[in-house]
């Protein structure tokens, strides 16, 4: 019953947002709204690995790229529905994209999640770069020129689709984290050795978190592909992964609410800084980004929310031991 309630809530929110967006916003703002949905998916899914499972992944853009390219390729060659039902294609594409990204996540995670901390960060970073280089060299996906003419428009249905996916991501991750699996993620984060002593298969737990996280990154990539209608390997550089990390860290590692807030802030900030860019003539956006990241780590290492969720906001920060 409660799970049904959650899904209804997600559907209603997505419907309200999409109606409001198509009625009241200009295309520019609609685009930003789409990016908020995509970035929320990316941030929440990365938070599962970085925040809840305590593993540091720097290759999220790579999984997003897998999803985006798979989805684009399928959509260019395969249309199960046509005409008025065309919109029903997109969930299928997103699902397939997510599954492919999850498979990639499994392939990367299986060997590399035995490594600890820093090494994992580097391997995932390396994987992201390898994906990009392979995409640059694959002629099937256009190589460095990129892929054009991917179907997809910005309208009420696609907006509903994007926000339904974003909502579903949050809901599914929320339920996952509050299940027994979620508790094993947390125990791996807190102390891997102790978790192992308690009979938790730490490698399996980590791979699971990684695969689920890649699934949603792939789905986000699919939505991204059908929103921008063109893909280029340059969109999936290391900086994109760092962007997602910034969202997670800004909002607070271990808080889905925080990730959503982080995603919204990081999406809106560059647009809000545009006047400053025009005023000074130099692109200070990334300078401000990186400075924020450093200062955040020094002054408020837990991010905006720490590990609190929306229903715990009133709670004072737990004392650090």
């Amino acid at each position, binding site marked *: 019953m409660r799970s049904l309630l959650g899904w209804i809530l997600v559907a209603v929110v997505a419907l309200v947002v999409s109606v409001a967006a198509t009625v009241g916003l200009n295309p520019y703002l609609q685009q930003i709204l789409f990016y908020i949905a995509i970035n929320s998916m990316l941030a929440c899914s990365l938070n599962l690995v*970085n925040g809840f499972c*305590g593993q*540091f992944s720097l290759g999220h853009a790579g999984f997003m790229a897998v999803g985006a390219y798979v989805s684009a390729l399928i959509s260019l060659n395969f249309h199960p529905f046509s005409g008025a039902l065309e919109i029903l294609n997109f969930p299928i594409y997103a699902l397939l994209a997510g599954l492919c990204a999850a498979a990639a996540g499994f392939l990367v995670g299986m*060997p*590399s999640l*035995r*490594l600890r*901390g*820093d*090494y994992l*960060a*580097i*391997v995932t*970073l*390396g*994987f992201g*770069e*390898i994906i990009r*280089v*392979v995409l*640059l*060299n694959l002629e099937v996906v256009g190589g460095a020129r990129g892929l054009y003419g991917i179907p997809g428009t910005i309208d009420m249905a696609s907006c509903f689709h994007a926000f339904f996916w974003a909502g579903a991501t949050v809901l599914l991750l929320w339920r996952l984290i509050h299940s027994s699996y979620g508790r094993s993620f947390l125990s791996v984060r807190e102390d891997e*050795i102790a978790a192992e002593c308690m009979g938790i298969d730490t490698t399996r737990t980590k791979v699971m978190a990684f695969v689920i996280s890649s699934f949603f990154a792939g789905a986000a990539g699919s939505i991204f592909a059908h929103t921008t209608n063109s893909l280029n390997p340059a969109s999936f550089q*290391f*900086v994109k992964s*760092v962007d997602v*990390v910034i969202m997670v*860290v800004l909002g607070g*590692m271990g808080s889905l609410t925080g990730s959503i807030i982080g995603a919204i802030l990081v999406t809106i900030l560059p647009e809000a800084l545009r006047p400053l860019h025009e005023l000074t003539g*130099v*692109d*200070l956006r*990334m*300078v401000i*980004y*990186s*400075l924020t*990241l*450093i200062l955040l*780590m*020094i002054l408020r*290492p837990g991010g905006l929310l720490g590990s609190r969720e929306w229903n715990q906001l009133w709670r004072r920060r737990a004392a650090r031991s």
Partner: protein
Amino acid sequence: MEELVQHIINGLNLGAIYALIALGYTMVYGVLQLINFAHSDVYMVGAFAAYYGAMRFHLTDKPGWLSFALTLVISMVGCSVLGLCIERFAYRPLRNAPKLNTLITAIGVSLFLQFSGQVVFGADPKLFPEVLHDETLFSFGAIQIQLFDITIISVAVVAMLCLNWFIQKTKTGMAIRAVSFSFRSATLMGINVNSIIMVTFAVGSSLAGVGSVLVGLKYPKIDPLMGTLIGLKAFVAAVLGGIGNLPGAVAGGLLMGLCEEMVVAYLSSTYRDALAFGLLIFILLFRPSGLLGQTRVEKV
């Protein structure tokens, strides 16, 4: 055959440069267990310090060994100062924070240097000043040995020998080794850990400065993003050799340079950037502590 020898020479050159930068990574990792992502951008700033220094003192007017040495010194000093600032203002406040936070800060510092570099130095590439003229020293058939090849290798070797002497023979070097062996016991032995860490940053960064001038000689195009890729590869080289292990970093750097040159020569140049990470993943799967690293058993 002659072609192969030529590729080996080029690979050794590239490898020597990777090794110099990898040493900086490995030294900092040794004392702090931190991947200093900003190291690659310290290297970039070193190249620009050399560029502006050479312009300021008109070193291009009389190219020669003296100008070259001066450029090296300018770059090394610039890098050391930057390295010290990074350590003091970004890493030291986080000395007792979780590792993840320091890692994220390091990425932040790296991005900050890259993008403020684009603002300060301008995003378009600049031509590195020619402080030394290249000439062909001798040639056997198709093999040509250039002055720059010899310079790069000999400067790198001298720098590494100096480092080795410093780490093995001096008291400060001994303290560095002690800190990397055990942070806490070193403090108990009366070693001022903070100043040792600062020395480590200064030395590691100045090696990056040497590397940047050598790269500037050989590939005279510098831009604010030049550090990213070479830094990543140098880091991979450090991991390859066993991070925290100085001879390992040198071996890893040379291996990396040779492999890359061979891939470019005999396979495809577009895959050269994927090679580094492919190699890294391969090594980490079969020997997670690197070629010369020791496996540490985690104790509870």
